[in-house]
Every structure is written in C-alpha cells, then in structure tokens.
C-alpha cells in the first residue's frame, strides 16, 4: 500500500526524469539517413528455421538395441525352470479327474412312497471325493439302517489308502476313483434291490 511519501517521491521522480529527458538534445536531422547509409549493403539475416528435435530416430535406435539384446543374447540356463516345466507337463498329461461321478441322490421322506427312480447327481469336484466316503449317503432315505451301516463299513474297508511309495498323487487319486466308482455301483444296486423289496 502506497503511503503519502511514496506518492510524493513518485511524483518528484516523474518530474525529475522528464526534466532530464528534456535536457538531452534531439537526434540530428540526418540521423535516419546515416543509419540507412550504414544499412546500404546490409540485409536482414534470413530467418533461421528453428531446429526441431526429432526423437523418432532415437526411439528406433532404442528399439533396435532392445531387439538385439532380447533375441540375440545367449539364453540363460534353464535348469531351474525345468522341474517346473515337467510338473506342468505332468499336470497336462493326467486324465481329467473331474469325471462325472454318479451318486445316488438321497430321497426325501415325501418322495420315498412314490418309488420313483433315483436320478444320479453329477459331481464335478474331484478334490471333495475324500469326503464323499464319510458322508452318510443314505441317511435320509428310508432304507434299512443296519444294512446301510454294513454297506458303509464294507465300503470304508474297500478304500485303499494312498500307497506311500506312490509319488504321483494323481495316480493315487485315480486308484481311489476306481474304488469309489465300484463301491458306488454296489451301493446303487443294493438300494435298487431294497426299493424293489418294498
């Protein structure tokens, strides 16, 4: 914010500079002629085009270097990567364990009287097959309970544990799958017989 003193000094400076300029004599009348005489042989320098920095050659060069480094450099040792590759190939070669497992659906109490044929349920989760053994498959069905216990006990005995020497877990699962299938087939037949009796 300007004070009175500031305004005063500004005013005095305006006046002082004006007086000083007035003391300077005007330019000579032939001033322009003298300058034009000096310019006689001169011409303005031609307009220089500004240098444009072109980056695309640098980009191309960088790409070429990258190409050389990536494709022409000696490959690294793949010893560390090999076991992983083998594991992956084994996984691919294994048969699909998610085969359809036919499983009898437990009947509800309402439907048991109608004696409709039992529709098999499709199970697509092989990793849950171990639980399948423990599930009370016929718990809700109106069948002979003691007979079912026998069946389950027998089925549990039929399931072979994974052989300790068997390194491949997929092969072990396949063995179990075979057992489970045969057991399931037996259970289904027995249930069908029971239903027929009733």
């Amino acid at each position, binding site marked *: 914010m300007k004070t009175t003193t500031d305004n005063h000094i500004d005013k005095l400076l305006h006046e002082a500079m*004006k007086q000083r300029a007035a003391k300077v004599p005007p*330019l000579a009348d032939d001033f322009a002629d003298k300058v034009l005489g000096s310019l006689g042989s001169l011409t*303005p320098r031609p307009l220089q085009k500004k240098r444009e920095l072109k980056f695309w050659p640098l980009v191309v060069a960088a790409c070429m270097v990258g190409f050389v480094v990536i494709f022409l450099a000696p490959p690294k040792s793949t010893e560390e990567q090999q076991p992983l590759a083998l594991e992956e190939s084994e996984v691919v070669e294994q048969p699909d364990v998610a085969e359809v497992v036919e499983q009898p659906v437990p009947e509800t109490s309402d439907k048991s009287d109608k004696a409709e044929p039992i529709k098999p349920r499709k199970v697509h989760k092989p990793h849950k097959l171990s639980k399948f053994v423990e599930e009370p498959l016929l718990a809700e069905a109106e069948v002979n309970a003691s007979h079912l216990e026998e069946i389950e006990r027998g089925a549990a005995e039929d399931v072979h544990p994974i052989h300790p020497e068997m390194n491949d877990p997929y092969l072990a699962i396949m063995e179990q799958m075979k057992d489970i299938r045969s057991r399931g087939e037996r259970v289904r037949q027995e249930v069908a017989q029971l239903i027929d009796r009733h």
Partner: protein
Amino acid sequence: MTEMETQIIQAALQGQAQGYRFLMNRYGRQVQLLVAQWVTDMRDVEELTQDVFVRAFEHLSDYDPERASFGTWLSCIAHNMALNHLRSQGYESLPLNEEQYSPPDASQWAQDDEASSEAERLALLDKAIDNLRPEERSLLHMRYYEGHSLGEIAEVMEVPAGPLASRLQRIRQKLSKLIGI
C-alpha cells in the same frame, strides 16, 4: 504494434530498407534517451543509437511480435549495447537482481540545509540521480519517464521482476530520505 509497423518489418525482411526510416523516426528518441542514461557524452549517445538501429535491422528476423513489442525489443538491444559499451571502458556493472545491494550513501549529495521548496527538491533529486549507477538511472528512466511496467523492464534488462522491484523500492527510499520527504 501497428499494422503499418508489421508491414514495414515484413518489407525490411524482404530487403526493402527504406520503410525502416519510419521505425527510426518513431523509436529513435526512445532509444537515444535510454542510451543517454548510460553514456554521458552526447556524441557517443548518437553513435550508439545508430548502432542500435543497425543491429536491430540485422537481427530483424529474430524479432517475435508475440513475445514483445517492437519498442521493448529495441530497448533490450539498446540496453545490452550500452552496457557493453561501458564494459569496454572498464565499467563493472552490478546485477540489478542482486538482493543484497544497497544504493551508495547519499549523505555526500545532501546539502546542509534541508530543501524547502519543490524546485530545490527537484534539483537535489536530479543531482542524486546523476550519482546513481547507470543501470539504476536506466531503471528509473524506464519506470518514470517511459512508464513501463516492472515486467517490461525486467524483460528489457533480462532480470527477474521480483528482485528488480525490491531494488527500485530501495532506491526510492534512499532518494526520499535524501530530499527530506
């Protein structure tokens, strides 16, 4: 810049120097007064003023109307040429953006009795301005005679506007103290 100036500059760029006379008549006095803040000998002032216009003509293709007016561009050339002229005579300039600068002690210029009238104050102020450094006189001239903004002055002198404003303020305070206001 007027349309005529633009046409003259374009014509001069194509080798027609006669139109340049118009620009000299229009800006000659401005350049002369600016040079006179630096050089006291009037013959040197006129020679330098001529050199400024010759240099400007040579570099006319470098002039960018979008960056500065033609007058500001000429002032910039005049400032640099006057400074170089003084340097060639051994003058050491003090950068105007120097923050620690303080004007020379003004007590030697002051008269014993305080200036009572406005005329006496002006005379005292004129004497004090004579004792300022050339770049400071040039700063006062562009600010108080030509009425340039600090931004324009900073562009001519090629220094930041902030320190330039501080420097101007210190000069004003010193001069105020000197003339007793």
